[in-house]
């Protein structure tokens, strides 16, 4: 192994990108922009729900009080109206996400009222959130009688004052964005490094520079290592930018060691570089290289737990998800950033180990395609 050759290749890649400000902007600005948008959107859907409520029972039960406290805690807005028509009109106009209508039940003597929930329904995420809160409140109201309802208005405690809540990981300040940011760091690193390697290796082949490279005394390992090193510089730069946006713009909460985060990003980069070199052999031009995005990137984006949780997928899809490198990097990144898993944690070592196996497998594939060039 000649270190000089590996450095020469790494330096060349970094130089090429420095001369290409558009691509540089793409890998730095796009993830920052997308992450900011995702964060903003996730937070705004959670915060902007309002609900109308009407209590038409003759003896008001604990339901509305409980609802008010529950919504107040979530930062939602509750509008208590006097008639059902008013509430329905508000839902219809889109002023509120839903209306809860309580009516006295037909049979005399039973305390529990008839509960009807009318949802605006166009945003399933909102509908689901409302249903979740309302059913909790209804269930809770059924358990206690009005007399038992503690007068907490003085202390300002919410419904959960009744339930003692402790967090093993995270805390009440953790929200969806904190949960979504860690896998996005890995996703962008994998996506851009894969795409850029595939395209730049393709250019090497179509531009004749790869043939030139192959008739120098450089070894395959030196070439592949140089590529990994050059792209790792870019990936780390990108991860730094994403982390800065996440920490300074989105104010995400994290608990783990950022050194381990970079270790995971670099391993993911090695996997992406080599997958890119391998698959570029099957593309004849840039357009064909781009065609690998729906094949390689989109399924991983959907199934690796970036947006949808793997545990809630059908069994066979879970199997598919566990054959993808991003699944493991996502679990590892979440583990580190949300649960402060360190290098002694079994979960982290398992995820990181599988990621290393993927990287090693792709290194093998890419060196096989480079060997083929010699035949």
């Amino acid at each position, binding site marked *: 192994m000649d270190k000089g050759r590996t450095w020469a290749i790494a330096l060349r890649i970094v130089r*090429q990108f420095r001369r290409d400000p558009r691509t540089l902007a793409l890998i730095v600005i796009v993830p920052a922009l997308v992450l900011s948008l995702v964060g903003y959107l996730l937070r705004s859907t959670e915060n902007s729900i309002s609900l109308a409520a009407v209590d038409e029972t003759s003896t008001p039960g604990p339901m509305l009080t409980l609802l008010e406290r529950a919504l107040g805690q979530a930062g939602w807005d509750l509008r208590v109206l006097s008639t059902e028509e008013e509430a329905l009109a508000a839902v219809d106009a889109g002023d509120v996400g839903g209306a809860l209508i309580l009516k006295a039940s037909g049979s005399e003597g039973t305390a529990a009222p008839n509960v009807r929930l009318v949802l605006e329904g166009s945003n399933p995420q909102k509908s689901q959130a409302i249903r979740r809160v309302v059913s909790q409140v209804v269930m809770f109201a059924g358990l206690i009688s009005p007399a038992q309802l503690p007068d907490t208005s003085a202390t300002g405690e919410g419904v959960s004052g009744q339930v003692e809540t402790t967090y093993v990981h995270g805390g009440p300040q953790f929200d969806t964005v904190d949960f979504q940011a860690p896998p996005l760091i890995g996703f962008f690193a994998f996506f851009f490094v894969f795409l850029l390697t595939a395209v730049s290796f393709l250019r090497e082949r179509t*531009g004749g520079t790869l043939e*030139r*490279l*192959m008739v120098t*005394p450089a070894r395959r390992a030196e070439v592949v290592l140089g590529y990994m090193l050059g792209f790792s510089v870019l990936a780390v730069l990108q991860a730094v930018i994403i982390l800065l946006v996440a920490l300074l713009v989105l104010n995400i909460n994290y608990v783990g060691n950022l050194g381990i985060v970079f270790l995971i990003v670099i391993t993911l980069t090695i996997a992406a570089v080599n997958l890119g070199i391998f698959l570029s052999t099957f593309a004849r031009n840039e357009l064909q290289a781009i065609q690998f995005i729906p094949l390689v990137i989109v399924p991983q984006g959907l199934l690796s737990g970036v947006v949808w949780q793997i545990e809630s997928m059908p069994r066979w899809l879970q199997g598919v998800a566990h054959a993808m490198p991003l699944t493991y990097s996502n679990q590892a990144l979440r583990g580190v950033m949300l649960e402060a898993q360190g290098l002694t944690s079994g979960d982290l070592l398992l995820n990181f180990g599988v990621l290393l196996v993927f990287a090693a497998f792709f290194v093998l594939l890419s060196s096989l395609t480079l060997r083929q060039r*010699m035949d």
Partner: protein
Amino acid sequence: MESAVVAEGVVKSFGPIRAVEDVTLHVDAGLTYGLLGPSGCGKTTLIRLILGTLRPSKGSVSVWGQPVPSRAVLSETGYMPQDTGLYMELSARENVGFFARLYGCREQDNVDQVLELMELSHRADSPVNTLSGGMQRRVSLACALVHRPRLLLLDEPTVGVDPRLRAAFWSHFHHLNEAGTTIIVSSHVMDEAARCHRLVLMRDGLLLSEGTPDELQRSVGARSLEEAFLIYAEARGG
């Protein structure tokens, strides 16, 4: 005289297509050999077989007595591909410096010298994609020369090059011969052929004939090399 390249009964097929058909060739050291023939006759394939990037289907190739591909041989071989084969975003100096480091030679001494030799010093720091076609060919040649190879393989180096630059290239080649470098250059331009010490005429993967330009012309009584080439091609049933 020492043989730089020895090819014995070399056949190269790509599926049903035979790109090189039973070629036997001895290339003497220190001379310029011209591979002459129409495009698609197997010149590039033969050059790649000598480089070792292609393996012969039959027969053998050795350079300086060592079977190819050999890392030791590659480090003493320079290659200029038919397409420019440069990193377009990088400057001339960065391109030449990159290949210098891959060949393991210390950067500055050779790089500046070869850029000056190719009359590129004044544009050495411009990105290659801002240079004219002729300048790009000179950068490409500089990349092949920077490690002072003993054997130089040039695949149509003068395509799209103006006459003045073409003359400059050929005078460089002769200076290199004087310094002991062996050159194999492919071309389909007949007027370049007269400048080679020896010619290898090829057609449809076959080696038609090999000799000095004079020998080839005289033995078939042709008035020009072009006529000689046609007579040889006809004689092989073409």
